[in-house]
């Protein structure tokens, strides 16, 4: 590593950092505007045209606020917890390819590294709640630990199933196998793998393996802590959970980390299931952004519509529904690869998995609603939603 290499690497990391910050700022703006429009109100309007400088105003406000450290708090833990949360969120972006050549350092085990880093931020959250010397913080951090650890399992299993289907953990390869062969071949040629039998599919994985997208989105939502899985920092119940004693610049770190994780989950969903940066006319990185922001908008839309699940319902959903489903996903992916069945068989098996999920949801959640609608549906217009 010559001095020039180090300089280039530093410049690359710096630009990645800047681009990420701009992306997070845009995410904050989109969330507030979109939630406002969902609720029939304007979002921010006065800070800059269309409220575009609102995230900047938020950042300035957070930075100039007083950083209160409670007197009983464990200072070392209090100060290191935010770092443990945000540093892994940055490190994920080292391996995510934005287009064919725009990636800082493409790793052969890219997916593995990403999932491992996501797990690291759980520790930061738990320490944040513990170091706050606040009972709400303690409760919140325990809830966070339980929820995040239990939703790692389906996430990891889905990642494994995608690896099985594609034959590699390299993110560029996984995106490449979803593109037409003539574009994908150069990427596949220069990729390393001990198996060297990539499975070129040619279609985005959403058509072949929709079960994977479903599980990945839900597990990703739970990992990031977005509604309907945001009980551990639910404002109306435990007033912020692990973050309750953090204010000012400390809290802005958690805020940033949450949005970066959301962006990372959306970007991964785009890469793994929608074909990454492939698209007709526009340049490649534009397609990457379009697909990522599509998932971002879906995530925010879900936030504006649904109430949140209670912690025991959440855990039940994670262990009783998502985990068997993700095991099934691994098995059907393996069957498909091992016996070399055609792609539509995987689609059929995925759809059967989704039907099973729908059935489970129906039995547990929808049947009481149907019973209620039978008894009282004629008294309320809301029953028109229930068939």
């Amino acid at each position, binding site marked *: 590593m010559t001095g020039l290499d180090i300089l280039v690497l530093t410049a690359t990391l710096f630009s990645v950092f800047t681009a990420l910050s701009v992306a997070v700022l845009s995410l904050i703006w989109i969330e507030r505007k979109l939630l406002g429009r969902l*609720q029939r109100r304007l979002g921010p309007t006065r800070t800059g045209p269309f409220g575009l400088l609102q995230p900047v105003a938020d950042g300035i406000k957070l930075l100039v606020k007083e950083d209160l450290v409670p007197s009983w708090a464990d200072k070392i833990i209090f100060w290191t917890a935010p770092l443990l949360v945000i540093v892994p969120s940055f490190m994920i972006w080292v391996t995510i390819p934005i287009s064919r050549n725009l990636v800082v350092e493409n790793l052969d085990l890219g997916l593995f590294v990403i999932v491992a880093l996501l797990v690291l931020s759980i520790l930061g959250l738990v320490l944040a709640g513990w170091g706050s010397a606040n009972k709400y913080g303690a409760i919140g951090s325990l809830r966070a630990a339980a929820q995040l650890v239990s939703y790692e399992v389906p996430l990891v299993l889905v990642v494994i199933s995608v690896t099985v289907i594609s034959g590699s953990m390299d993110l560029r390869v996984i995106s490449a196998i979803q593109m037409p062969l003539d574009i994908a071949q150069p990427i596949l040629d220069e990729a390393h793998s001990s198996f060297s039998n990539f499975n070129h599919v040619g279609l985005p994985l959403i058509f072949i393996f929709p079960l994977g997208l479903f599980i990945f989105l839900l597990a990703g939502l739970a990992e990031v802590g977005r509604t309907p899985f945001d009980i551990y920092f*639910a404002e109306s119940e435990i*007033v912020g959970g692990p973050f309750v004693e953090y204010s000012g610049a400390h809290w802005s770190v958690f805020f940033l980390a949450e949005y970066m994780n959301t962006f990372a989950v959306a970007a991964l969903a785009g890469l793994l299931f929608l074909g990454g940066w492939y698209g007709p006319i526009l340049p490649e990185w534009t397609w990457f952004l379009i697909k990522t922001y599509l998932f971002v908008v879906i995530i925010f839309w879900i*936030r504006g*519509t649904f*109430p949140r699940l209670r912690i025991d319902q959440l855990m039940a959903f994670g262990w009783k529904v998502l985990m068997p489903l993700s095991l099934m996903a691994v098995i059907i992916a393996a069957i498909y690869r091992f016996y070399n069945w055609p792609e539509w068989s995987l689609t059929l098996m995925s759809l059967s998995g989704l039907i099973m999920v729908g059935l489970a*949801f129906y039995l547990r959640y929808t049947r009481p609603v149907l019973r209620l609608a039978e008894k009282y549906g004629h008294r*309320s217009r809301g029953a028109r939603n229930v068939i």
Partner: protein
Amino acid sequence: MVMYDDVPMSDSSGEFDMLLNMGPQHPSTHGVFRMLLKIDGEVVTDAEPHIGYLHRGSEKLSEFEQYHQVITLMDRLDYLSNFNNEWVYCRAVEKLIGVIVPERAEYIRVILGELNRIASHLLFIGTFGLDIGAMTPVMFAFRARERIQSLFESVSGARMMHNYFHIGGLKEDLPEDFSVNISRLIPRLRQDMEETDRLLSFNELFVSRTKGVGVMSKDMAINYGWTGPGLRACGVKYDVRKAETYSVYDRFDFEIPTTLDGDCWDRYFVRVMEIYESLSIVEQALEQMQEGPVNAMGRRLVRPAKNDVYVKAENPRGEIGIYLVSDGSDKPYRLKVRPPSFCNLSALKELITDSYIADAVVILGSLDIVLGEVDR
């Protein structure tokens, strides 16, 4: 027995439950209300409500105001149902002095009281959804509430603290554009209500959060002195408007919605059904209303004879009672309010014990208390 942290009640193994203070400053305790919870993991084992943070001495203050000035105090008791509070107090004084309110005034009182009931229930729906985590129905419900409050502003001059019902009738007649405004309001209210309803009432996650949570049996509810939508959700068909009819309620055709299970969803849904019933009462009253005078009293100063009277009415939160004692002077001797939220709140400990913390917030929200009424 007050719970404090330095006196832990430990069992023989030396373990004790954690004391969590959902203090007066909390985003979802619906006002300045303090709840001390003893929790064991996620399960609440004991609960102790502390009230009094909003005590303003309304009952004592009313001993120094003349009868027509006390109406301003009554507005601010249950600050979400102002017209209903003014109404029950005016009925109490009218009963003391024996004046009969003209018919047009009665009809207008019914219309405004029922619209206020709708507004109060809309706020409940919005904030209940917010407690559960749904942040969109609040905006829709408050949009509908804005329409009602604009109508109130055109009638009485103020969106909330009206001082419009006076002893013997009303302050002045309705404005000329009232019939136009209200004929435009009612279909829009139906639309807004439908939107909020479709978003929340039969949503699977909402039902799973609230069904089976905080179940109150019929006998326990009657024992605790519950009234209002909470009681009707347990299956008891008791409504003061039908049981001891007052004003012109006997001329309207409306039902009393009840459900059978007595849990949070039922308490929520009874209020949704009541909104639709109130809309139909308003429409019937508009049809039946005639022209005429609106106040039967020629003077404002009232000096009732020495007597006492108890009057009750159906507020959005339950049965409110006013016990008024007069000693012949122009100020009340004693004014005692029986607030519905206070009696409903007495069952909190029973409901919250052995439920999760998250459910504690939901149950408290479903009781629909207003601290202005609890503390007076």
